[in-house]
């Protein structure tokens, strides 16, 4: 028979060209991953939405009546919304300033000890905003804060800083999220061709003019993108507002949700409605962020990283060094010292009497079983989260960027979805979702594991994707042509090449899971105490000195574990070559 083009065809050709339904290894893995991801992400969201539409009897599940009443009452809490916007906005501005200034100094100028400072900039991320909030609460509480005590001892009146004010909360948030801004803005700077500035200089434009006319306009789109991302993160921020704001009756949406859930009687539907509205706002923000980044900003055309020429600033470089060092001081050194100082006293005073010093706090904390359990749980959970997370996001990344299976766009969307949901809100949905789950995992480490893996999908996916994209496709295609099956290629070509990236992602996930608060505080049970929420609980029920002791012990132990894993992963990355 002949086709329309007049070419003779073999009768069997039609049949062969029709789709073959024998699933390949790739397709099977793909389907499993898609289903798992969809389940992890959609299941809690469903319960969240359901709870927000519950207008029936409060304590009865499943809901007896559905309606929009909960949303209708939201305007009554407009003050909380305004608080959230104010604090988030102020924190974003501050974080951007910190991030921009330090990124500029460390990427563009010849500041002494650049390497050390660059590594030091990552430490505030490890320290966690919770510890920072605790320490700054000790430093800046209007009456008892050490700084204010010092101020008064020097003859001042009242309080020079009030860390419990909205700006104080924003300050703490910015100090610790500032390192995220630093990394993002640094990446923008690194992707700018230095020749663009050199051309301006050769044309005769001075440094200032070059910066204003050339550099700033070029980095602005990237910085704007970073700003939106940071703002979205601030909206969902929880620890600083919890520790500093709640005592003085200052609520933001996340702490309000927590309060509504933890109070008696709890108002779950209202909390769910608030959570959904926060989630909607974050969703819009991240959508805008994607658009800005996707619409090719001038700078990131090739995606290559450039090393810009470092400006020699002469004696000014010590000033710049001081600026960076100050940031590290305020976010890491000072809080740590404060916690140590407080933990050694009965009642923290700036100039303590000799009798005030004691090791009692440490003694009583160490005698509590809860500490040991919390630490081992956190470490175990960290290892499991990191391992499962890397495996899952590794597969997802490969399927999204390298495979040809249908629905991979949807897969990426689903995996990145948790980014738009504040972690506390997500955990809230999970709380209900897993409570009614037939398998009794509620209150155990398993539900925490599921929660962590889910909320960290975006983090893992982002990290591994960027590494994957740098691996040339042709390396895998060559294996394909050689006759290797998908599984074999993954094992022998892709994984080894990705190894350093996978190890870096592992480390990131481990750290993120140990420092997590929002997701775990609602899901923690008696047998699944974990670190950061345990410190929060301690703060609510103990003196601040004992809390400081507890925080220090836990941080120290976890720090050791982190250092250990860091060395191990570095060693493994290097061996892989």
């Amino acid at each position, binding site marked *: 028979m002949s086709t329309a083009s007049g070419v003779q065809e073999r009768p069997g050709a039609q049949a062969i060209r029709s789709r073959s339904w024998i699933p390949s290894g790739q397709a099977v893995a793909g389907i499993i991953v898609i289903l798992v991801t969809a389940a992890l992400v959609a299941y809690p969201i469903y319960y969240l939405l359901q709870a927000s539409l519950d207008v029936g009897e409060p304590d009865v599940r499943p809901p007896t009546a559905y309606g929009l009443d909960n949303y209708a009452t939201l305007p009554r809490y407009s003050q909380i919304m305004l608080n959230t916007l104010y604090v988030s906005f102020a924190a974003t501005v501050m974080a951007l300033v910190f991030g921009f200034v330090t990124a500029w100094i460390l990427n563009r100028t010849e500041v002494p000890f650049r390497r050390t400072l660059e590594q030091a900039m990552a430490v505030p991320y490890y320290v966690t905003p919770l510890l920072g909030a605790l320490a700054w609460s000790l430093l800046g509480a209007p009456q008892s804060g050490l700084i204010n005590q010092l101020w008064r001892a020097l003859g001042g009146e009242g309080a020079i800083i009030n860390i419990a004010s909205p700006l104080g909360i924003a300050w703490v948030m910015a100090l610790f999220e500032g390192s995220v801004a630093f990394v993002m803005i640094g990446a923008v700077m690194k992707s700018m*061709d230095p*020749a*663009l500035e*050199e*051309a*301006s*200089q*050769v*044309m*005769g*434009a*001075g*440094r200032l*003019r*070059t910066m204003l*006319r*050339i550099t700033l*306009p*070029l980095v602005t789109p990237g910085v704007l993108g970073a700003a939106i991302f940071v703002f979205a993160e601030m909206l969902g921020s929880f620890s600083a507002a919890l520790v500093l704001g709640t005592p003085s009756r200052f609520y933001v949406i996340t702490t309000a949700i927590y309060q509504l859930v933890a109070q008696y009687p709890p108002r779950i539907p209202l909390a769910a409605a608030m959570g959904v509205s926060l989630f909607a706002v974050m969703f819009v923000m991240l959508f805008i962020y994607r658009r800005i980044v996707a619409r090719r900003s*001038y700078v990131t055309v090739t995606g290559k990283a450039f090393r810009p*020429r470092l400006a*020699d600033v002469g004696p000014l470089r010590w000033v710049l060094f001081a600026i960076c060092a100050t940031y590290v001081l305020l976010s890491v050194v000072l809080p740590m010292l404060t916690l140590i100082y407080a933990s050694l006293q009965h009642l923290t005073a700036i100039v303590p009497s000799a009798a005030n010093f004691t090791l009692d706090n440490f003694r009583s904390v160490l005698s509590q079983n809860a500490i040991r359990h919390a630490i081992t749980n956190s470490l175990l959970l960290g290892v499991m989260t990191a391992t499962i997370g890397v495996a899952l996001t590794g597969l997802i990344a490969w399927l999204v960027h390298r495979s040809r299976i249908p629905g991979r766009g949807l897969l990426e969307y689903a995996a990145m979805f948790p980014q738009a949901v504040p972690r506390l809100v997500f955990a809230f949905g999970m709380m209900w979702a897993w409570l009614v789950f037939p398998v009794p995992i509620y209150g155990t480490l398993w539900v925490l594991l599921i929660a962590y893996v889910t909320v960290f999908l975006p983090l893992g996916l982002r990290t591994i994707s960027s590494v994957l994209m740098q691996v040339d496709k042709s390396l895998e295609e060559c294996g394909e042509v050689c006759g290797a099956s998908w599984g074999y290629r993954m094992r022998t070509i892709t994984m080894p090449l990705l190894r350093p990236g996978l190890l870096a992602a592992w480390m990131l996930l481990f750290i993120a899971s140990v420092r997590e608060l929002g997701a775990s505080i609602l899901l923690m049970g008696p047998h699944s105490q974990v670190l950061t929420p345990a410190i929060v609980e301690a703060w609510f029920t103990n003196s601040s000195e004992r809390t400081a002791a507890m925080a220090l012990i836990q941080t120290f132990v976890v720090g050791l574990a982190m250092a250990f894993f860091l060395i191990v992963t570095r060693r493994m990355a290097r061996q892989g070559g």
Partner: protein
Amino acid sequence: MPSNAPAAHIEVEDLEIHYGPVAAVGPVSFSVQPGQQLTLLGPSGCGKTTTLRAIAGLERPSSGAIRIGGETMYSSARGINLPAERRGLSMVFQSYAIWPHMTVYDNVAYGLRVRRKSRAEVEEKVRRALDLVQMGQYADRHASQLSGGQQQRVALARACAFSPSVLLFDEPLSNLDAKLRGDMRIELRELQHRLGVTSLYVTHDLEEALAMSDRIVVMRAGKIEQIGPPDEIYNYPRTAFVADFVGSSNLIRGRLRPDLARDGLIALESEGGHIVHGVAHGRPAGAEPVLSVRTVHLRLVTGRPDGGGANGAANGAAGEEPVNVWPVTVRRSVFLGDLTELHVAWGGRELVVRCSGRADVGEGQPAFLSADPRHCVLLEAA
């Protein structure tokens, strides 16, 4: 034509540039006459771009001096190091460095605006510069929408717009395809002549250097191998490196045979026993003399050439044995389109011959090889 600032004289004296403990360049010394183009030629990593950037003020040398138009731009002895924006130079970058957030017009006008020229003057000069590179109708186009070749022209226009006295070029044609490169080469040369501006040009492409330069500096590993006009570099290479980098060359080692020298030619006995006559070009023969013969200067014929034949062996009086004629066998023949490359067995080794079109001799066949002694050049002693 836009009136230019008087073309300036570039002087570089004992310039050394270090990256940490490694000496990337130096010491090097050279100068460029006003209105001339000097090209820094060499393989990647030889330090040519670093030297150019140091002259521009974008790299900081460790010692030496740089003077432009008589003014000291850099002097380690006197502690002077003028920043790039004050040197009054102009530069075309390898990546063009066109600012994507401005229009073509704004890109070209930048240097003029920095010099605070009036709106009218800016307009006039920008238009002229754009016409010079045939980009006049793109003036209002956004720079991020240009193709590679268009960006290159805009970079050129930008560099010329404010009539600089010195123009620096950092491999400006390396990102273009071969055809465009050939065309742009000619245009750049014409432009340079028309503007009469002093140019310092960096490239690794031999043809570019030969076609465009008044003088060439061949660099290797941070040091200068040879300075001279193109034909001297080509015909009388100083070292083995220059001989083989600038065109392809056969290097023949041997020992000097002063007893066979005649008519101002020197004679070398090759390792395989052949006698080769060549020119010393005023260079003393060292302990291990080497003659360089370009592949295109070797002739291959089927029959033995007589004296005075078309093969041009300069052999003085008729009846004397013609010099530089040897029987050879063709080992391999490679057809390269415009040329054919033949590898011949000669004196225990291979020589490479390039001749235009198809060769008369095929593989495995015997033939006669001859070379004009004027084209067999003695290299400088190592």
